[in-house]
């Protein structure tokens, strides 16, 4: 297996401890749980998505574990502005605040609360199951560009997380790039549903949800590959990464770093495990393999 040389990692304007980042929505509600993941080997952490008003989220069930993935519809629960207090103990750590809003003004308002209090932003333009937010905006290149510009104008590193639930993801990636994004994160969950045959209704309280985990890895690799051809800003791969070899595969598709979420459910120590497998003194330089599957 290909392994990587250790060394400093900076992606999309954010200095990271390694290439492995905790994805948004996973153990990201409290400063203490984010800190726990950093202590246990994450190179950076993305918070739960924070919005303009506190939200309780959807009625349950919100999560169902599948054989090779996780189906969820949380409904963007978040404490809104109060979240700034959670970040205080994290100090200068590589913490990226995930943000959502219903329009460019709301994105800028929420981002404004965290300027100087985090290492950067990740715009959630991709949640597939929250009405008026996330993918409702993320499928429209004009809105994506406007929301990205509203946040990037604040001068902080601005990552944009894309939905795969579009015909052409490169059109959305290019819109983020035009709006001043410093990196693209691909992908968020794939819109999905399961039905309880015993109860004769969809298992999620919200009916529709998003699929993550191992099952979606081929889709995320394809999206990163397409984006690498179309965009020049760095890409962060996300979706179904659970082994060091999948990190390498994602980098070969064009990713400079990766985000890991669902794999944490099986193993809270996944970052330590991946780090041990991924890095060695005599490994290759990351720039040797990023995008090497192209051409």
């Amino acid at each position, binding site marked *: 297996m290909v392994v990587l040389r250790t060394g400093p990692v900076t992606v999309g304007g954010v200095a990271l401890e390694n290439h492995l980042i905790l994805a948004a929505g*996973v153990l*990201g509600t409290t400063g*203490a749980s984010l800190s726990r993941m950093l202590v246990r080997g994450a190179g950076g952490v993305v918070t739960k998505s924070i919005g303009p008003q506190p939200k309780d989220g959807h009625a*349950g069930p919100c*999560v169902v*574990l599948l*054989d090779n993935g996780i189906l969820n519809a949380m409904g963007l*629960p978040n404490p809104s502005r109060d979240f700034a207090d959670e970040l205080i103990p994290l100090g200068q750590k590589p913490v990226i605040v995930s943000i959502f809003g219903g329009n460019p003004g709301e994105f800028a308002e929420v981002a404004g609360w965290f300027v100087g209090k985090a290492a950067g932003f990740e715009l959630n333009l991709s949640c597939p199951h929250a009405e008026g937010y996330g993918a409702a905006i993320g499928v429209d290149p004009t809105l994506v560009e406007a929301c990205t510009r509203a946040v990037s104008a604040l001068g902080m590193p601005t990552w944009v997380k894309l939905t795969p639930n579009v015909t052409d993801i490169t059109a959305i990636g290019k819109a983020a790039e035009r709006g001043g994004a410093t990196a693209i994160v691909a992908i968020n969950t794939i819109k999905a549903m*399961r039905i309880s045959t015993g109860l004769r209704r969809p298992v999620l309280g919200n009916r529709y949800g998003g699929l993550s985990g191992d099952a979606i890895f081929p889709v995320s690799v394809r999206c990163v590959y397409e984006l690498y051809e179309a965009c020049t800003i760095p890409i962060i791969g996300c979706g179904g990464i659970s082994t060091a070899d999948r990190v390498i595969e994602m980098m070969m598709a064009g990713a400079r770093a990766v985000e890991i979420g669902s794999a944490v459910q099986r193993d809270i120590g996944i970052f330590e495990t991946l780090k041990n497998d991924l890095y060695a003194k005599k490994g290759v330089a990351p720039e040797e393999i990023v995008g090497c599957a192209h051409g």
Partner: protein
Amino acid sequence: MGDQLPAQVSITEIKNETPSVKTFLFDREFSFEPGQFVMVWVPGVDEVPMALSSANGITVQKVGDATGALFNCLTGASLGIRGPFGNGFTRGEKMLAIAGGVGAAPLLPLARSDCVMTMLLGARTEKELLFVDQLDESTDVLIATDDGTLGQHGFVTDLLNDISLATYDRIAVCGPEPMMWAVFAKIEGQGFASRTEFSLHRYMKCGVGVCGSCCIDPDGLRVCRDGPVFSGDLLKKSEFGHYLRDASGRKKNI
């Protein structure tokens, strides 16, 4: 593991335990450890965590939308069950169990497994004492009621004055958090926190350790996965007894 969709169960029996607590029995048994919980889906309403009070039953106090809807269910109604999840109480050979109100629910199966020497049972008033007869069959029960209608007049913590903690190798506690906090303070004062376990209740969404809604400060431990049962040692300098987070993640004082 296969797909872990909620298991459909039918309610076979509903028992009125106290004026505010009912037991719902299912047509299906789950293999579990006392202290583990299940996510109970009331279709069309919500899904909430509930301790198992037996292999095929939950014992519930009406507190919100989902439990309110559950109280309106009749025999034959269908529910969805995910789990059992979380850890259980560490068993000892000579255990002390301490329950307040509906907190007796996860402690009943522990008592029935013949490892509890003494049970301290507290409630607001005699009618709200849960499982008195069932517990009596398995262990010595000492009772306290806030209004003095049965047993000692006062709190369950007052009963601790009458027993020697050194007699017991493990102590299991479940009840409202102010009650558990009072028990913790007393037990910690006598140096027995490390052999005592508390079953915590926090707002939960996923139940499987991934969403983070139930994480407690300062170590970010997940109540649904690392708990819900925690050693007193782990809780010493934690949010336990002080505050919790609501569904949105905002802090609320206890």
